[in-house]
């Protein structure tokens, strides 16, 4: 299994991945999009966000994600920041 960028997150990441793999193949592709792995994802993300801060990857990532990769989709992710919308390069 592949590791997390943060070593200490690898265990929880792999638990989450196993859950997601089952959800994707057994539910999502069969038309059931109801959530199944949220608890594991929140735990994993909590660990990961700390790592990204430590490695100073959080700002790099936020900058890269300001640009909407799917401009045809009207709804956007909750994680995109609105505070910096006035500051465009």
């Amino acid at each position, binding site marked *: *299994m*592949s*590791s*997390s*960028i*943060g070593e200490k*997150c690898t265990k929880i*990441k*792999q638990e*989450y*991945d*196993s859950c*997601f*793999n*089952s959800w*994707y*193949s*057994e539910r*999502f*592709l069969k*038309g059931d*999009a109801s*959530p199944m792995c949220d608890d594991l*994802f929140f735990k*994993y*993300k909590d660990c*990961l966000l700390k790592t*990204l801060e430590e490695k100073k*990857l959080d700002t*790099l*990532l936020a900058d*890269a*994600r300001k640009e909407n*990769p*799917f401009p045809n*989709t009207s*709804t956007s*992710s*909750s*994680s995109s920041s609105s505070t910096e919308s006035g500051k465009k390069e």
Partner: protein
Amino acid sequence: MVKFYQHTFSFEHAWDNVTYAFWLRYPNPFASHVIGCDVIDRHVDPDTGVLRTTRLIHKQGVMPRWGRHLIKNADAYIVEESEVDPKTQTMVTRTKNLNHVRVMQVEETLTFTVHPENPKWTQVKTEARIVSEMRWGLTGRVENFGITKFMDNSVRARKGMAHILERLRHNAALAGTPVAAAATTGAPLDC
């Protein structure tokens, strides 16, 4: 300067399995430079039913000798945004490098659809844009290196996916289950 690249190829595997293999594609023997892969964000759009995912991929590469003074640190971070629409059976993924962008920015889009001539196969369209803002007359060299490297990497990425797909098929055959359900029965695989 900007260079464009476009390519279409097929996997002799069903769309469900190919999109599933996409999530499982690291680690594989053709991607030993990938040392980490994380899911940053993931949700299903309640209006469209589309699964949107953002992943961060950590790679460690080797620079050619002439490029070593340009990039001191061979760690590269790639952001990958994807959308899977199970209704239209379309998966679109967009990747770009997060660091070293002044030397070179590579943006790649992959579109996975059911093959128009064979519903049991998957067609993959690759579109890429390679931009270098280097001065000192190095731009052309950097971009030519970039496009060559990019094509090598595309071939390796395809081999990696094919490897995962074969493993899934093998596990499914052993377990007597459909391919997309084999993850829970076969060897552990993941992002």
